[in-house]
């Protein structure tokens, strides 16, 4: 049985992961902004077979509250073997272009708050010398594109932070997994028309579960995104800047 912390637990991907972890009989600690959703999810996970489910509300950008909350998690779970960080917002690119405040706000939520959490969590895992840190990034972080580069900037920054952290924690035997989902059919993307490239949160959760099990470093999910991003990353900038992507 693993003791698992899930941050942003009511996001669709995190919820699908939590359901898998519950069925495997692990102990879970859920953090999310909305307390009413959280309680009904916790109850669902208990029915699914979780050894224990705790939950608390959490404000990603209230950085000063993080330390106490993480201590509480470790105490109540009686340890911490795995963390999944899944909170975030899908930035409105056009609105960001007109507002410095909004742009910084998006970077704060999607990058800085995660980096703040990881900074604290890294020390716990480094000392403990085992465990897994899994963070949801995005294929959008692989290359800046005009349609969503604010979101992409945050996810890209996260990706580089995680590379460094992985390098640092490798000698302590701690897994650092960067998860790069492509298009996922979630409430966050409800407004987009869906095509064949879209995946379900359940599929993504399945891939995440397997990647943790196999001690992977970077996960593109579904797997074909690795190929798509390989192509997108290899287009020369002289040409890329002319494309409307």
């Amino acid at each position: 049985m693993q003791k698992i912390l899930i941050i942003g637990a009511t996001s669709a991907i995190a919820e699908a992961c939590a359901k898998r972890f519950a069925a495997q009989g692990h102990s879970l600690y859920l953090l999310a902004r909305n307390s009413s959703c959280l309680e009904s999810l916790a109850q669902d996970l208990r029915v699914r077979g979780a050894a224990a489910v705790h939950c608390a509300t959490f404000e990603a950008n209230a950085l000063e509250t993080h330390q106490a909350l993480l201590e509480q998690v470790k105490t109540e779970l009686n340890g911490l073997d795995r963390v999944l960080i899944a909170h975030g917002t899908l930035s409105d690119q056009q609105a960001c272009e007109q507002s410095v405040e909004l742009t910084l706000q998006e970077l704060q939520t999607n990058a800085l708050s995660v980096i703040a959490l990881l900074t604290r969590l890294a020390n716990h895992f480094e000392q403990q010398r085992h465990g897994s840190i899994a963070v949801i990034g995005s294929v959008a972080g692989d290359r800046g594109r005009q349609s969503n580069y604010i979101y992409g900037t945050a996810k890209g920054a996260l990706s580089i932070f995680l590379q460094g952290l992985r390098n640092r924690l490798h000698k302590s035997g701690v897994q650092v997994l960067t998860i790069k989902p492509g298009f996922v059919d979630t409430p966050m993307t409800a407004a987009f028309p869906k095509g064949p490239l879209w995946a379900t949160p359940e599929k993504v959760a399945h891939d995440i579960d397997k990647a943790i099990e196999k001690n992977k470093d970077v996960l593109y999910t579904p797997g074909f995104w690795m190929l798509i991003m390989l192509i997108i990353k290899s287009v020369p900038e002289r040409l890329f800047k002319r494309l409307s992507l």
Partner: protein
Amino acid sequence: MLTHGWGRYPLHDAQLIQPHTTQEAFELLGQEEAVLGRGMGRSYGDSALADTLISTRHLNRLHSFDMQSGLLTCAAGISLDELLDVFVPRGWFLPITPGTKFVSVGGAIASDVHGKNHHLHGCFSECVESLELMLADGSLIRCSRRDHPELFHATCGGMGLTGLIVAVKLRLLRIESAYIQQTTFKAANLDEALQLFETHSTSTYSVAWIDCLAKGQALGRSLLMVGEHARDGQLLLPAKRALSVPLDMPAALLNRYSVQAFNELYYQRIRKPESTQRVSFENFFYPLDGIQQWNRLYGKQGFVQYQFVIPKAAGLQGMRAILERISASHRGSFLAVLKTFGAANDNLLSFPMEGYTLALDFKLEAGLLELLDELDSMVLAYDGRLYLAKDARMSEATFKQSQPNWQQFQEIRAHYGALGKFASLQSRRLGLD
């Protein structure tokens, strides 16, 4: 958004709203004029189509489970697939299950679906202890066979027209194995097939695949499959990779010759008059679920599934006459299913009645709708009826003649304020305004 049922006919431009909580659903209900709940969209025709659809996909939480009694409470949007994933490894199964697990619990109740054990155990509503319904004014009402029984019997099989089913209390079935002991019998014609059903009427599960293009001596040749839950204690199935139909197949691929050839192979593949296999519950109950989006096989135009039941009294003679008409039309499908039903229940619009049912897929093409109208009149002449969850085209007159309870159904809807608030393209077509 262009929306359709599993048959991909008809298409309708609908607004699909996806609330995440009952509270959100309540707020939406107040804003919209007429709405309809929609689960997994697996009914075939237009019964889950309307201008404004409230999707229950995200109302899918489990609430409680009692390991002693097997009583489960959950939100109604959860799929049978998900329930099986959670409960089969723990030794529980659905007492009643349709031929696909990709339906929501709410949808299963609204269509009062049946399974291969209908002749013994009845429709899905038999395992429903109670349900929670959101009425037109947004209020929640719990109904069961004891509380508001008239609303319960109108809602089970009521195609979502009484309100939005939000939560359910179900009774699960204890199993010792995820496998089914299956025996297949060969029937050379319809007479033999119906005889076999009679002989095996005490088997828990029974269903027949029927070759609807066979003629003359071989008319109605079938493979009858009966099954019992195995008792060997193995509850976990090995993981399986799902196949998928990636795009619309050219409709011309399915024609009388290709279907005839398929049917011949499928029938002759079984050599012995009787053979026994051990198969997973997935293979036994949900053979088509292994092929995602199999509805694309019928091409871009879509298809209609036609399922009727005729009373036992009409029996062999009625079934033979209808099969002869279908066989003569050369419009057969390779997925044709024959089954005997047990007695009808007290739900006002439930489909099954004691007798024989036949379900066939027809590719949508010129002349089909005329043929189906002709079949309708044959079914009516035998005092039979059609399955609303499959229907996309029957006339108001056919419906009202074959479902005499429709007036009582309307009275109950009126009493609970559902008229004008919950409606589907189907309900409008059938004169249930």
